[in-house]
């Protein structure tokens, strides 16, 4: 009991510390001062009256939301004697693996720089700055020569690294038993099995209404949809983060989604946020990074050829270029096993460190937000809460390693024949599903289905659902898959997910 209490007070202390530096704190202070003017605030009962005032005016709710937000993100306190690396990633071999992966990426970047004689970063001449500012909204129409740029790594390279992960303290033994894991991932991480998953994802049970199934044309809306929408509106009116998160487990109505996500991620567009975004934009205009060209190339190859997202091509550049310069993102590295590479440009240009990452999934968000600074905020928050885990090596249950393992375990346990068959023909299932999971299915599902999937990521504060979905897809196509005889054919069977209704 004592341990729990001291854990709790530790958490509280840390959260208070964090919030003290936030904008919300100064706002609350201001509000408190201003409230002294109000007649109902009396000196004798100052504390209670102010508290009451906060409650009525909705400021208490905002504070609750902020605390809730911190709790969702905050890693569990570890042993007080643990070093800070432990917070990032408790397992040494994982940290080491992530470290060497990063080194490899940097090396690749550096050699690209040397080959192409392009600096990692440089300041733009004034003329070029003006030009970029003019075409800020139309970067998609630019056609710079990007043929020499190679992407720093492809998903399959990353997969190879994960496959080769081994825990040096774990000896599997030579004997094969029914427990032997036949998949590619060979690290002993704990993943949930179906009974545990069922318990965790209880709201996805068959007897509970879901958006995406129970609002389809054959079902009269009175049964589920209308009520669900009404509750959603109520949640928004109350501005309650925790309630929103619970609510969205059953899916969000399209019209409410943008606001619900903002509420859950605790994002409100303050003038400071818009200013911050503008500052990042200025940064982009003033300095050119090598990474920019890589981003540009990636967007050109993916989003601009996509049926749904091509319209938003220009937004993607704006968001990603700013993101690569956003130092506040670095604070998430405290709980990310990755480290920002030591900067070569610090000192030279006064720019802080920047991170190298695989350009993550902005495009679907363009369906919800079209104001650039809001779009940016939502994207950044999604990244630092969830998506970064798809690109770094860690033992976290939502990390890509665990997701891969979860996927393989589910498949092997519940569809052993299929698993074995695919393995025999050289089509290890993970090789196919990896690319889905690492992009959170963006680009593989129809947009409305994708958004429903991401609803659940937010609702359960976990990426495990990606692995479950991947396994479900295989289950769904099992009959066809049993008949294929090659990896290529298996890929073909699974190539088009866009017709799947995710739920």
């Amino acid at each position, binding site marked *: 009991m004592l341990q729990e209490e001291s854990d709790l007070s530790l958490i509280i202390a840390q959260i208070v510390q964090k919030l003290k530096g936030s904008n919300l704190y100064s706002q609350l202070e201001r509000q408190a001062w201003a409230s002294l003017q109000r007649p109902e605030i009396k000196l004798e009962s100052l504390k209670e009256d102010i508290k009451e005032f906060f409650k009525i005016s909705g400021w208490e709710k905002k504070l609750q939301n902020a605390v809730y937000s911190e709790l969702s993100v905050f890693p569990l306190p570890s042993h007080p004697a643990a070093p800070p690396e432990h917070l990032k990633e408790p397992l040494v071999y994982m940290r080491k693996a992530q470290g060497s992966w990063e080194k490899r990426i940097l090396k690749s970047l550096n050699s690209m720089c040397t080959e192409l004689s392009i600096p990692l970063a440089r300041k733009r001449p004034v003329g070029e700055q003006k030009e970029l500012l003019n075409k800020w*909204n*139309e970067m*998609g*129409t630019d*056609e710079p020569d990007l043929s020499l740029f190679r992407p720093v790594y492809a998903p399959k390279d990353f997969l190879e690294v994960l496959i080769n992960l081994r825990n040096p303290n774990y000896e599997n033994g030579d004997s094969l038993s029914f427990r032997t894991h036949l998949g590619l991932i060979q690290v002993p991480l704990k993943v949930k099995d179906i009974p545990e998953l069922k318990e965790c994802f209880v709201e996805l049970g068959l007897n509970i209404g879901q958006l995406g199934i129970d609002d389809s*044309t*054959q079902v*009269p*809306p009175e049964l589920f949809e209308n009520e669900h929408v009404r509750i959603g509106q109520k949640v928004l009116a109350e501005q309650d983060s925790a309630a929103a998160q619970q609510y969205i487990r059953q899916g969000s*109505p*399209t*019209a409410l*989604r*943008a606001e619900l996500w903002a509420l859950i991620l605790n994002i409100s567009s303050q003038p400071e946020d818009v200013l911050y975004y503008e500052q990042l934009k200025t940064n982009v205009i003033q300095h050119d990074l090598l990474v920019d060209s890589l981003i540009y190339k990636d967007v050109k190859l993916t989003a*601009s*050829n*996509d*049926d*749904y997202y*091509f*319209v*938003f*091509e*220009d*937004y993607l550049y704006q968001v990603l270029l700013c993101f690569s310069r956003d130092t506040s993102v670095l604070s998430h590295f405290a709980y990310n096993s990755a480290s920002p590479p030591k900067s070569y440009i610090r000192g030279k240009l006064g720019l802080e460190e920047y991170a190298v990452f695989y350009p993550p999934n902005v495009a679907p968000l*363009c*369906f*919800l*937000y*079209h104001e650039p600074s809001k779009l940016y905020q939502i994207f950044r928050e999604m990244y630092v809460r969830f998506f970064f885990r798809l690109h770094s090596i860690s033992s976290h249950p939502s990390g890509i390693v665990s997701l891969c393992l979860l996927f393989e375990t589910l498949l092997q346990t519940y569809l052993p024949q299929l698993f074995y068959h695919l393995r025999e023909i050289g089509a290890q299932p993970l090789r196919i599903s990896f690319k889905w999971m690492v992009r959170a299915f963006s680009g593989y599902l129809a*947009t*409305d289905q994708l*958004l429903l999937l991401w609803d659940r990521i937010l609702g359960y504060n976990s990426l495990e659902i990606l692995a479950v979905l991947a396994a479900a897809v295989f289950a769904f196509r099992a009959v066809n898959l049993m008949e294929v005889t090659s990896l290529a054919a298996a890929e073909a069977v699974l190539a088009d997910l866009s017709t799947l209704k995710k739920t």
Partner: protein
Amino acid sequence: MAGKVKWVTDIEKSVLINNFEKRGWVQVTENEDWNFYWMSVQTIRNVFSVETGYRLSDDQIVNHFPNHYELTRKDLMVKNIKRYRKELEKEGSPLAGKDESGKYLYLDFVPVTYMLPADYNLFVEEFRKSPSSTWIMKPCGKAQGKGIFLINKLSQIKKWSRDSKTSSFVSQSNKEAYVISLYINNPLLIGGRKFDLRLYVLVSTYRPLRCYMYKLGFCRFCTVKYTPSTSELDNMFVHLTNVAIQKHGEDYNHIHGGKWTVSNLRLYLESTRGKEVTSKLFDEIHWIIVQSLKAVAVNASPSLTSSTANDRILKYNLINDTLNIAVPNGEIPDCKWNKSPPKEVLGNYEILYDEELAQGDGADRELRSRQGQSLGPRAGRSRDSGRAVLTTWK
């Protein structure tokens, strides 16, 4: 029913021919006895021109109504809508109601338009009222964006002035007919780009009016960002969305062809603007379509050329569903049939308007629901049949 349906076409497109063949229909020539003739616009004109006096027999169907050009030629369409409105007004129909400034409440869906050179002077009067506005010139009989241009100065259309010194009897007839409309220079933009809607509507009968809307319509985007700036008035890549134009642009993408499905559009609008506004928008689009059809007859050929793989699939399915409705059960047509098809054969079509159903409930319900809160298409649905009917009003 004995015998297979005999078909003819003068358009060699696989999306058509594959559909006919898969039904086991028999191809014949136009001089033989045929049941179904998919005609090109030229052929329709010839077949139904006054001189030939051709009449269809009871077991023959064609794919266009003879007077289709009443809606496709821009000048005729405008004339028809104006005439329709005046007729309704004369009848005292509440549909023709106007507000205090004289604007039609429910029928204001065509921007101010004039015929040139016929209405030149009227146009000049209107132009002078707001000299900074932009106008769009469209040739009456052309398609695919050909010959369209924007103007903001009278001098740019001097040619069409009736009193121009060069006009004489001879050159009058050389002046091509154009319509000029007030240009809407603040269109809805997505991703900063202008787009239009390509919707497929099938009219199976005129009296009573039965029309169907294909659910899988699409939007066509410009490749270049929209700007109302006058310096870009000549840039057709900014203003015209026709694929025929856009596909010559530098940024045209051959994989998706700059198109979105209408359901995608709906998703986007609902997410960013909310459900009520979106439902109202679609409601009004359907309203415009039905009113235009009522004003006149039917449309000419949509392009059957497929620009992308997805496109081909779409058009194949479109023709498939069209044939299922127009020639139910694949049997030889008989014009004495009651032509209301059962719901199952609709495929991806939804009933846009069925006059027989509507008449059953009395025509003034039409107006009552227009005036009330826009309920969106869902409200019109009946409990057991699912969302078969698009319209809230009847």
